[in-house]
């Protein structure tokens, strides 16, 4: 029966090819066949099929079919590779066998045979590596209805923790894998799209809007929010350390690589996808029930996407575009978000020895914001949750839930107008391209030349009208202002350029295999920001041209980094592997005394289970690989921070000079030296996999912004004086609980531990990376403490509950969890699949400024003893900040979803495939804290791209819940 189906399928397929003009099916020397899953017999489209020794290859079409024409040899070897499956090599005798073949692939639960690129120059089998590479397939990516790369990766990569600092569109995230290696550079990994380094700024820029750009004002806008997520084939993530050594001075936080689809082979496959959903604010953590009613409403969300994928043996193309719109959850559509994504990629063979790959991506992202965090004046959540309604505007009873309906209606009308009159818009246009040529001039040698650009333009506009000011200040008739209206514009233009030339040579000598990689890479980033602000404007103005007063500012930064690298991977008997490599970098941000910086790596791995003596154990223990490595990666300093400069400003219509930077000719990258040992294990015929790693990374020459001794009159200066230690275990497992033709049930879990400590501050005084004045709350870097621990006043109380003293600037807890990880389950029953992802953390603390304000403004006692309030009222509110710090253990379910693939019998001939999916994002939170443990001020007090560990919740909304249905049709 199966054969009959296959034959009918093949017949139809080749008929179709004939119709399309591609089918030279009459050749007698051809190889054709189909690649399917060993268990489910489902076809595997996009599988790489190579005829070994003939230097010919193709990929399977949408039905899993492949075809080679004009094969002259009788005996051939066909090698089939598909992501997530074990590579299979099949001997094929063209004269004896039928010219049609079905190749069944076994799922590669451990991903050992996966070919990865990140950190390896061109590509290499995971099996050879002494380091870990995590990857996410297009199937995993496409089922998560997120528009953001960081949200896609949230809870999907075993040791990468990603937390969204806020729920407004475009908010920054806190992404970190192996702790916090830097007290200066943000922990966000660098991001490459098709080999091109792109803007990954995940903090406020130097110049920005009050609702997004200022460091203490809540959610800043992240460049990760508009990385095109269309048409992704695969995402790889590698940890900072030996894995990222080849990226040199710029990779201590790890690397995320995004690879786009370059088209399949065969007829054009058209996919149309439509998503409809509802977004609801997550109000789980609000103190007042009525906060929800004041600010939020359900918003309609929709996304429509269309893609075309296809090609021929020599050419592949993939086009995709989408439109996304959500009303957002804020009243008056103040969090409305519209986004357009376009991606085109193609590959073309240039003769027999070269292939050209090209991808273009364009994203347009527009959204609205409202005042949040510490924006001051009327700021929504501070007004309600912080108790500031007591004195804001006309002043209200700030115990909002106790208001009578009439009183509440008055407040609601005030809030409604205050929200409606806000006008903060962000508009991002982003264009990316990657162009590469892969050349195979001689056998076993591959050369890749790549050039690419990322150009991102962000425009933020905030319009503050006199009407808004008069309303929120409750100005009395006759004393309304007409002169304080303002428009603030902030532009940020980022241009990134990447050039890379890499060669890889593969040599087999007896039992030895050599994989030699060498190359050079250059990237340069230009970051140009400008602010142009008009004040004293009439209401109704949309540009600053009519303003009575105009001010402007500019920020410019440019950096060029260029280096050469070499790596050798030596294999023996395909089970002993040894690798070493070196990158040398120069960088325009280094001080004048600093020349080339070298980053070495060395590693070894051993596939124990491939030894003959292991055969008897294979039923129980199917795979054992042990590995160890050591590598150095870096973070380069801020461009031009090494120079001694004079700064200028205008003052009373004349030029005014002053000290600029103190200068540091010895400024160099911080270096993270990571040692790692680990093992990859599989049991019960790969049904249980277990990965165990232990790492210790020591950052030396850590970059600290050191405040100058005030007697020098100089400003703070960046210096390489610190040492930071991170160490921990990374354990991940995947268990195939059930695996048969109808059922597939997989569960996965990752557990990571982390110990982080600043082991040496080089004599620098403690400094703040996210927070306010030392008398309130800060997250601080200090010798002997974890990076970004909470520091504030700690109160002591008598037995009666009256405050007896306060310890200034006490340690109130770490913001870094000592335990974190994620959990996932995938259940597939025939055509129905159900999945869920969650992540968790334990051991970290955060501060709620909302609670502290509620205490101060007498909304509630917040657990402070009545005796203290009776004795001192609220005046000690800042003397026991520790009472507003809570443990932030949490388990958050990020997504629960289900997909159903309709059988072809239902679809007839019109549709290739029809999928129906439903999902809920952020459905459940289980937290130890009374506030959302994830939201935080964005941080980056040390400047753009500065380190942050979160930990300060202050008037920031949580990520919304989304209820989404998706229909995907291919034809």
């Amino acid at each position, binding site marked *: 029966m199966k054969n009959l189906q296959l034959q009918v399928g093949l017949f139809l397929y080749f008929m179709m090819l004939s119709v399309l003009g591609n089918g030279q099916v009459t050749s007698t020397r051809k190889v054709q066949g189909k690649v399917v899953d060993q268990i489910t017999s489902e076809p595997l489209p996009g599988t790489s099929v190579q005829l070994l020794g003939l230097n010919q290859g193709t990929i399977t079409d949408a039905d899993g079919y492949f075809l080679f024409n004009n094969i002259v040899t009788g005996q051939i070897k066909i090698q089939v590779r598909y992501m997530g499956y074990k590579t299979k090599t099949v001997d094929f005798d063209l004269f004896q066998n039928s010219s049609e073949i079905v190749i069944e692939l076994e799922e590669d639960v451990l991903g050992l045979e996966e070919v990865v690129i990140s950190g390896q120059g061109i590509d290499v089998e995971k099996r050879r590596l002494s380091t870990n590479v995590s990857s996410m397939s297009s199937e995993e990516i496409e089922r998560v209805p997120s528009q953001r790369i960081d949200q896609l990766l949230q809870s999907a990569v075993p040791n990468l923790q990603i937390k969204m600092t806020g729920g407004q569109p475009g908010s920054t995230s806190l992404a970190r894998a192996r702790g916090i290696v830097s007290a200066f550079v943000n922990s966000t990994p660098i991001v490459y799209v098709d080999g091109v380094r792109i803007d990954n700024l995940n903090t406020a820029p130097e110049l920005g809007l009050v609702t997004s750009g200022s460091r203490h004002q809540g959610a800043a806008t992240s460049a990760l929010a508009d990385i095109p997520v269309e048409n992704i084939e695969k995402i790889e993530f590698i940890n900072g350390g030996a894995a990222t050594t080849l990226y040199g001075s710029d990779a201590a936080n790890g690397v995320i690589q995004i690879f786009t689809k370059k088209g399949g082979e065969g007829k054009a496959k058209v996919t149309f996808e439509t998503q409809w959903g509802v977004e609801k604010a997550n109000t789980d953590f609000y103190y007042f029930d009525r906060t929800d009613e004041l600010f939020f409403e359900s918003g309609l969300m929709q996304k429509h996407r269309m893609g075309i994928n296809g090609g021929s043996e020599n050419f592949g193309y993939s086009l995709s575009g989408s439109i996304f719109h959500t009303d957002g959850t804020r009243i008056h559509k103040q969090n409305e978000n519209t986004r357009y994504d376009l991606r085109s990629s193609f590959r073309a063979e240039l003769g027999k020895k070269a292939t050209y790959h090209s991808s273009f991506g364009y994203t347009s992202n527009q959204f609205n914001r409202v005042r949040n965090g510490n924006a001051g004046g009327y700021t929504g959540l501070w007004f309600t949750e912080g108790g500031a309604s007591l004195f804001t505007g006309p002043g209200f009873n700030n115990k909002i839930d106790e208001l009578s309906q009439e009183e509440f209606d008055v407040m609601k009308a005030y809030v409604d107008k205050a929200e409606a009159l806000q006008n903060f818009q962000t508009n991002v246009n982003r264009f990316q391209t990657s162009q590469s040529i892969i*050349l195979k001039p001689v056998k076993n040698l591959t050369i890749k030349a790549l050039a690419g650009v990322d150009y991102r333009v962000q425009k933020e506009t905030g319009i503050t009208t006199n009407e808004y000011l008069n309303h929120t200040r409750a100005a009395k008739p006759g004393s309304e202002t007409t002169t304080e209206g303002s428009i603030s514009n902030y532009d940020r233009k980022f241009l990134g350029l990447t050039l890379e030339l890499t060669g890889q040579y593969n040599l087999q000598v007896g039992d030895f295999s050599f994989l030699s990689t060498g190359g050079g890479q250059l990237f340069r980033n230009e970051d140009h920001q400008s602010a142009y602000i008009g004040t004293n404007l009439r209401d109704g103005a949309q540009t600053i041209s009519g303003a009575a007063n105009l001010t402007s500012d500019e920020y410019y930064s440019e950096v060029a980094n260029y280096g050469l690298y070499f790596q050798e991977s030596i294999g023996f008997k395909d089970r002993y592997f040894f690798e070493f490599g070196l990158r040398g970098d120069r960088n325009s941000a280094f001080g004048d005394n600093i020349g080339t910086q070298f980053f070495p790596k060395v590693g070894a791995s051993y596939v124990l289970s491939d030894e003959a003596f292991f055969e008897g154990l294979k039923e129980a223990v199917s795979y054992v690989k042990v590995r160890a490595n050591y590598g150095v990666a870096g973070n380069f300093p801020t461009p031009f921070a090494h120079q001694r400069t004079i700064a200028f400003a205008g003052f*009373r219509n004349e030029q005014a000079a002053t000290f600029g930077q103190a200068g540091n000719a010895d400024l160099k990258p911080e270096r993270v030296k990571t040692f790692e040992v680990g093992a990859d294990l599989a049991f019960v015929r790969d049904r249980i996999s277990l990965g165990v790693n232990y790492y210790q990374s020591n950052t030396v020459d850590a970059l600290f912004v050191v405040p100058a001794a005030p007697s020098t009159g100089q400003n703070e200066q960046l210096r390489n004086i610190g040492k930071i230690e991170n160490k921990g275990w990374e354990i991940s497992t995947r268990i195939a609980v059930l695996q048969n033709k109808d059922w597939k049930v997989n569960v996965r879990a990752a557990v990571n531990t982390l110990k982080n400590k600043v082991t040496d501050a080089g004599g620098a005084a403690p400094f703040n990376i996210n927070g306010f004045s030392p008398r309130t709350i800060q997250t601080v870097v200090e010798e002997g403490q974890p990076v970004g621990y909470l520091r504030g006043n700690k109160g002591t109380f008598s037995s009666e509950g009256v405050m007896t003293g306060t310890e200034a600037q006490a340690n109130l807890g770490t913001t870094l969890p000592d335990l974190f990880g994620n959990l996932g389950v995938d259940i597939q029953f025939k055509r129905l699949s159900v999945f869920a992802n969650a992540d968790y953390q334990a051991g970290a603390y955060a501060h709620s400024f909302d609670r502290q304000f509620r205490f101060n403004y007498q909304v509630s006692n917040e657990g402070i003893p009545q005796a203290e309030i009776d004795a001192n009222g609220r005046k000690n509110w800042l003397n026991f900040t520790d009472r507003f710090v809570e443990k932030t253990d949490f388990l958050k379910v990020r997504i629960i979803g289900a997909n159903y693939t309709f059988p072809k019998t239902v679809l007839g001939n019109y549709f290739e495939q029809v999928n129906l999916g439903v999902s809920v994002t952020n459905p459940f939170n289980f937290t130890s804290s009374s506030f959302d443990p994830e939201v935080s001020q964005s941080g980056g007090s040390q400047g753009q791209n500065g380190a942050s560990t979160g930990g300060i919740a202050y008037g920031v909304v949580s990520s919304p819940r989304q209820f989404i249905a998706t229909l995907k049709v291919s034809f």
Partner: protein
Amino acid sequence: MKKYIYSIALAASLSGCSFLNPTEVTNPNVTDEVFVDNPNAAASWLNGMRRQLALTLNQTVVLGELTSDNYYNNRTQSSKVFDIPQIISTDVDVNTLQATVQKLREMGYFGIETVAPKDAATTDDMLAEMYFLRGIASMFCGEYFVGLPGSALSEIMHPEQHLHLAIADFEKAMSLSDDVSQKTACLLAMARSYYHMGDKTNAVKYAEDVLVADPMYIKEIGYDGVNGVSNSMQFFLFDSSNDEFAPLPRLDFLDPKYYSIGNPDQDQKPVALLKAEEAYFILAEAALADNQLEKAKTQLKNLLQEVIAQRPTASIDDSKETRSGGNRTDYPLTDDYWLKTNPDAPARTGFILDRQKGNVTIPVVSGTSVTAVEIDAATTVDELLETLYLMRQEVFLAEGRRVIDLGIKYPVSDIEYRNNSNVQAEHIRAQIPDFIPGNRELDDFTNDVENKQITLTIDMNKVLVENKTNPAVVPFF
């Protein structure tokens, strides 16, 4: 194959200079060598020093007023603990204060020793102003701190040594300058420096010289809101859309000294650095120290009639001021309030303004509640000394001087301590005289709403006189 590579290389080279010189970067900064070697550097640097003085005054005024009994921080911006007063060396405000004062001084050294000699366009008047501004920095070092390094990372110098440095700079400035106003400023600054050293003879000498030169003299420091150098005190008193700082109720009638009409950026009021009132106070205090009650009365009455009465006032719409910052909500708001300056004092009216009745008239340079009749009524040195210190408090309101009169001195910052081995443990402790109450009592009062009566918890002028022999306060006693 080659033609593809050539084509790509050609396209790349035509597409922008980034491709042609990919390792070249544009430096947006001006290095100090480039600056000093270019013409007219001294003028640019001198204006930078003026700007720095405006920034320095922002810190001394705002932080000084909060630390003293003059103003209470009724909201969340600026220091939340100097009101207590709690002053510790690790506090960022302590570091900011030291840094801003010493930056002005270091800019003075760089200007005088490096910039001016290389710039042919430097005039004596420009050099004189650099010396004067450096002298002001040293004067602040002596007035506000328990001790500070005399130069970058050097040994800690006693306040008196800083004042001597200041005087040397003022003398040098006088010798270089032809400008009468600049010379008078130097005279007044020297009188003030000697006053704080307790050197009655010299203080009196220079104070008399000032009154000869210009009995209405005032040296004001201007601001520039458009270029980001706003008068911080003006923001906290008037421009902020919230009610930030609240004055001690007895000073309510003098608030706000700084205000704006229209766009605040365009209307930033100056802060008085030196004014002739100082000379009258010095002469009066010296007379009291010599037990010459009548002479002191004459000085103070002259001050009232010849100076304060002549200083400008402004009619201000301050109706948005409702003292509703949030930390205290019991500030009096109507002019029918009675006020006791301490629990044992008689209740008097006239201190509280009703800002909702219409514009209020505020002295924008100097104002006082003291009358000639009250001065004449004093029968003892102590009575008049108390009146003198009340007048100092009122006249110098929102100028950052009261904290010095209270004998409070800020410590060396923790960051200096960690970087400078010359700093000893004794230098990182603030000087807060024993008679200064804690627990925010300096700003405290009770409000008897029913009887419309405010009672201040403590009258610090009375306390100062009671402690006049304490070396930290009342220099001539």
